[in-house]
């Protein structure tokens, strides 16, 4: 296995001590108190912001070597808020592919199927969707670009338990069958224990602990993580 993304001694005004490698075809969860810099960390990985110090590389080359818009299609992101564009569900799904003149209306149906939404939703105005539906449309919109890396910022927070299971199945399948790499912020510790191989623990802007999820949860080394796990 080789790292698809590697961050070396990265620091900016919101995060520090960011040093880790993401292996291709794995799922990593990111945990930590709110305001600890989890979202800020994710935004560094598709260059919505840049480090002030240190370097992040993608497939062995510095991220700045790639045209930034190409890199962002390869490292897709789903935000904490759905941030859907005004218009229909289809307008949203085709946004990424249309930038490359690469949209096929058949794709819309298969994307909705992936996130377990009915296909007649395609023509629905996003205003009329529930929070959970919006969140899944946002996920499908990012999947439409077929990214290699998927950054998820609490992407299942608005879903009911049953739907969370379905989306976790989908993520699992993306990793094991399509070889995608996923980084997923979650505030749900049970979820972090349930899925993924690796875990990053953020605390006060600092990447405090990282490693295999089971080891990290069973033998936390830092005081901060122990306290966080106790709730």
């Amino acid at each position, binding site marked *: 296995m080789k790292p698809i993304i590697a961050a070396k001694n990265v620091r900016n005004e919101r995060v520090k001590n960011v040093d880790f490698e993401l292996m291709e075809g794995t799922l990593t969860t990111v945990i930590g108190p709110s305001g600890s810099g989890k979202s800020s960390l994710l935004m560094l990985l*598709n*260059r*919505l*912001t*840049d480090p002030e110090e240190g370097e992040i590389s993608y497939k062995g080359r510095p991220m700045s070597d790639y045209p*930034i*818009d*190409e890199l*962002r*299609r390869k490292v*897709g*992101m789903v*935000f904490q*808020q759905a*941030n*859907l*564009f*005004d218009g229909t569900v289809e307008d949203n799904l085709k*946004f*990424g592919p249309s*930038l*490359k003149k690469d949209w096929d209306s058949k794709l819309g149906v298969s994307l909705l199927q992936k996130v377990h939404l009915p296909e007649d939703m395609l023509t629905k105005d996003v205003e009329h969707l529930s929070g959970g539906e919006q969140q899944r449309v*946002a996920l499908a*919109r*990012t999947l439409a*670009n077929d990214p290699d890396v998927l950054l998820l910022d609490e992407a299942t927070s608005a879903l009911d338990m049953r739907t969370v299971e379905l989306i976790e199945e989908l993520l699992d399948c993306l990793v094991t069958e399509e070889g995608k790499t996923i980084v997923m912020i979650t505030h749900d510790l049970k979820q972090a224990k349930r899925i993924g191989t690796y875990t990053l623990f953020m605390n006060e802007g600092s990447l405090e602990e990282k490693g295999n999820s089971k080891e990290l949860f069973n033998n936390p080394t830092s005081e901060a993580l122990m306290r966080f796990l106790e709730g």
Partner: protein
Amino acid sequence: MTEISNLSLLTMIIFVMIPVSMSYYFSLGISKSAIWSSFRGVVQLFLIGYVLTLLFSLEDWQGVGLWVTVMLVIASLQAAKRGKGVPFAFTLSFVSLLIIEVFVLSVWIVFDIIPFKSEQVIPMSGMIIGNSMVATGLAFERMKNEFNDGRGKILAALSLGAKPAEASKMIIRKTIRASMIPNVDTLKTIGLVQLPGMMTGLILGGASPIDAIRYQIVVSISIFSCVSICAMIISLVTYRFFFNNDMQLQTLGGGD
């Protein structure tokens, strides 16, 4: 046309005192500024009366050139206030107002809609520049607000691989659309709800209503077009300032 005597004009003080005493009784805290702005308005208008008299006595090209320049500078300063934080807000306002003024004036003169005379060009230009000034200021404000409120959507668009122009498209569309709506509404009810100021003036001055509406048509339609051009120029230029060279969103200084 009958003249309003100085004495009659003085009775306007009664009208000023009504809002002022209301402000006093209801503690609205605007009595000082109400008196001051009325006073300032009166002085300003008298001065303009003398300035215009002077301008009309100059050669037409001199009078027009001089006063249009003054109007453009004042209007740009005012519009740029709304664009606080946007780089080059004054220059940008000035250039777009200038483009609009030149464009509209050329159409008016070339198609013989009005003659190139100070008495005609100056007041008509004033209406164009004044309305365009408001539109420019609103476009600045709108762009700033949209980029603030719509931050999440812009980030989402960027993260999907959109370039700044593509990510800003919805905001630009909203800004241009918003600039047109008040004019669409005005045109729909024009003359029914309120006689436009210029028509009122012409009729008071003794022009026949049919002549008055001809001028009003020219002005209203010209304003409609100028206002949309303004919003288009401002939004198409300013969206760039919200991004850095790495297609990342940046916050503009200067607050709201």
